[in-house]
């Protein structure tokens, strides 16, 4: 803010119907706002976000020549874009807007303390106005986007995403570490609930990929390095030890998942007839399943548990997979008994519940056990087992004979994903899977622009869910490529070249490799790569780094305004 120009802040306090108005005395807050430094105008609105409220706001900006705007209403996480848009329409740069959250952080949490809530609302407005006075206009840099995408992983998700992108008219590179496409589907026998051979489905996709001239296939290849940013990624591939360079505008991660091997659990690894559900698939696919007398399947092995080595999430596919394989065995060998030991059968949604009913009709037995008291497997002799389980529905101990034990283990993140997470600067969640930018608002995006995720690399899911998510990722990746130009984050860091000594602390800290040294040994920020976290500014030994829109001065002004006055 230039010194000669005094800020003229407009404050709009929203009643939000009764949401704020019934707790906070809004007229009192409006009157208080008028007394604050730099506030030139204040008014109350029934709903500031209504078209009437917004047009009143736009009028006031023009009429009073407002230089900054504060709306005291709800959370900026939902409504900031709307109010920023209104400011822009009134000719005000959208970064000259600031929000005071007096609903989620005040009226809704203090409905029984109306006086204190009103006082708090006043202070929140005072804090917002103090920051608003220091706000400056910002510009979002524009960059060109190459109309080509990299899809990492040639499984069902990767192929679906690639086909969709190619149909949208973009060129696509698929990188697959194996020498064949298909991923995990190549190991599966039949697919539920259609009972179609997995190979038939895979073959259709492989043909669609191979016959599409827009798709370039790189099998036996891995991603060695990725540099650059949305629109301009420079990718180095390693194909059988030979390096290949490609340039792409967007990246889709479809690296899939692996199956947890439950070593040490239920005698797995000790006897050949204790296998995982995926191993059973392979045996059946090869037509090598010898007739078993009694099959016992155990669900949630290493899943939905807090214990060490286990995973606390539900792997989503195992219930339906077990039901399918139980039915398959009953069909193949009608004399074979199949018992499923479960904690909760979650054959959710369309079709799967019917599938479960069918299994019951086909005399597949289901026995429920408690997580605290899991079944016990005892090897009687090679290939002969006894399984003891506490059936919590009849409250009794059940002993079962078995000659085949099938363990349903969860899908887990791959080792390569950890490498890619570091290389692409995209996070993994606590469960090891790739973490989207927002679970509801941006479910296939990463915080890093231009990179998207789909399939089981993101979380365990069925084939149809993987395909749907792949189409979602392809559609999201298509947006910047169709627009050809994108705007990037304005909230970035600025380095004061006179203060920087080139110590390199910020370079080590930056999670996006956005900071490099220039030819004079001074740190410079790539605005397109910077995501604006501010870790560099908070750590710079020379205090040479300032964050746009969140400078020390602005943050401190907002914080200390809460301490001034009453």
């Amino acid at each position, binding site marked *: 803010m230039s010194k000669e120009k005094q800020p003229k802040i407009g404050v709009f306090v929203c009643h939000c119907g009764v949401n704020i108005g019934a707790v906070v005395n809004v007229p009192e807050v409006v009157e208080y706002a008028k007394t604050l430094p730099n506030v030139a105008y204040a008014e109350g609105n029934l709903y500031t976000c209504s078209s009437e409220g917004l047009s009143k706001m736009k009028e006031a900006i023009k009429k009073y020549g407002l230089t900054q705007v504060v709306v005291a209403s709800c*959370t*900026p*996480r939902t409504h900031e874009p709307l109010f920023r848009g209104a400011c822009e329409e009134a000719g005000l740069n959208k970064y000259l807007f600031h929000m005071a*959250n007096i*609903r*989620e*952080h*005040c009226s*809704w*949490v*203090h*409905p*029984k*303390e109306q006086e*204190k*809530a009103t*006082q*708090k609302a006043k*202070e*929140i407005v005072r*804090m917002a106005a103090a920051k608003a006075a220091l706000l400056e206009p910002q510009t979002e840099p524009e960059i060109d986007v190459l109309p080509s995408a990299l899809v990492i992983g040639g499984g069902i998700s990767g192929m679906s995403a690639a086909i969709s992108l190619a149909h949208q008219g973009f060129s696509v590179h698929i990188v697959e570490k194996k020498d064949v496409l298909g991923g995990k589907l190549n190991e599966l026998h039949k697919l539920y609930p259609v009972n179609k051979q997995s190979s038939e489905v895979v073959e259709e996709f492989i043909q669609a990929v191979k016959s599409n001239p827009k798709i370039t296939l790189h099998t036996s290849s891995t991603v060695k390095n990725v540099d650059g940013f949305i629109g301009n990624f420079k990718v180095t591939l390693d194909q059988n030890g030979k390096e290949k360079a490609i340039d792409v505008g967007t990246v889709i991660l479809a690296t899939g998942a692996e199956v947890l091997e439950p070593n040490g659990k239920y005698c797995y690894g000790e006897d050949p007839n204790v296998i995982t559900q995926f191993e059973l698939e392979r045996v059946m696919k090869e037509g090598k399943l010898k007739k078993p007398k009694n099959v016992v399947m155990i669900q949630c092995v290493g899943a939905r548990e807090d214990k060490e080595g286990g995973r606390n999430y539900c792997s989503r596919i195992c219930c339906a997979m077990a039901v399918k394989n139980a039915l398959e065995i009953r069909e193949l060998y009608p004399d074979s008994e199949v018992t499923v030991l479960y904690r909760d059968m979650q054959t959710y949604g369309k079709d799967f519940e019917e599938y479960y009913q069918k299994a019951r009709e086909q005399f597949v037995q289901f026995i429920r056990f408690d997580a605290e008291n899991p079944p016990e497997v005892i090897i009687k002799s090679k290939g002969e087992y006894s399984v003891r389980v506490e059936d919590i529905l009849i409250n009794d101990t059940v002993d079962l004979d078995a000659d085949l034990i099938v363990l349903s283990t969860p899908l887990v993140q791959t080792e390569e994903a950890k490498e890619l997470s570091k290389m692409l*600067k995209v*996070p*993994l*969640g*606590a469960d090891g899977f790739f*973490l989207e*930018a*927002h*679970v509801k608002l941006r479910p296939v995006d990463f*915080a890093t622009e231009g990179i998207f995720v789909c399939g089981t690399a993101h979380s365990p899911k069925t084939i149809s869910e993987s395909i749907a998510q792949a189409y979602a990722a392809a559609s999201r990746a298509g947006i910047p490529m169709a627009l050809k130009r994108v705007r990037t984050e304005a*909230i970035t860091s600025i380095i004061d070249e006179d203060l920087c000594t080139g*110590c390199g*602390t910020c370079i*080590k*800290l930056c*999670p996006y490799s956005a900071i490099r040294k220039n030819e004079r040994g001074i740190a410079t920020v790539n605005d397109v790569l910077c*995501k*604006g*976290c*501010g*870790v560099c*500014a*908070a*750590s*710079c*030994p*020379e*205090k040479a780094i300032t*964050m746009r829109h*969140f400078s*020390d001065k602005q*943050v*401190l002004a*907002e*914080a*200390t305004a*809460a*301490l*001034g006055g009453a």
Partner: protein
Amino acid sequence: MTERSGFEPKIIGFLCNWCSYAGADLAGVSRMQYPTNIRVVRVMCSGRIDPIIPLEVFMKGADGVIVLGCHPADCHYVEGNLYEEKKIEMLKKLLALTGLQPERLRLDWVSASEGQRFARIVTEFTEKIRELGPSPVRGKNPNKEILKNLEAARNAASDFRLRVLVGRERELTEKGNVYHEKIPLEQFDSLLDEVVEAEFMQQKIHLLTHTEPLSVKALAEATGLEPAAVLKQIVNMRRRNMITVDRIKGTTPLYRALEVA
């Protein structure tokens, strides 16, 4: 609580945009109730909170400061929260030297889905601050000694040495230095203790000798250090051009602070 029934703590909360602020929003949407004392400042990442910021806020009379970020491994910016953890650890060491209770500063994790956890942490922290009572530097008659100490702490947190050490802590203890030597965490911690204390004392001596030239003996009294320890700091400060001999009074040299460039 009864004897302090008139006391309403002033608490500043720095919340990251992605997890904790969203968690606070969820507490609102779920209509959870918590004390009215917290004033929230939204930042993009908890890692944005420079150690100077809480110190400045304490100097202005805040009774408590709470920094909330994403849970480890859930950080929107990969590891900003883990870097913040290191900063807060260092800050607590500094606060312990100032006489302001380090418990007035808290770092915790709240995810976007943990509205209840947010309400619980804020309630707990508010109660804690109520127990501790008003900040000694709050109001019209602040404790001058502690205020001066906070200023020294702020200056120490602004200084290159401490910032480099904290900024590089994870690199040095987790990844190793340029010679691929990792420093064990305990060893780093005791090194940090030493540097925090030395930096704090040097800044304090600098502030004390800023208003009037003082002898080693007078400084020893003011800082509570042994005269030998004061002298050791003065030697280092002279090397760093922070202090000079103003004049010799009898046989006693009096030291005066130099403006730091």
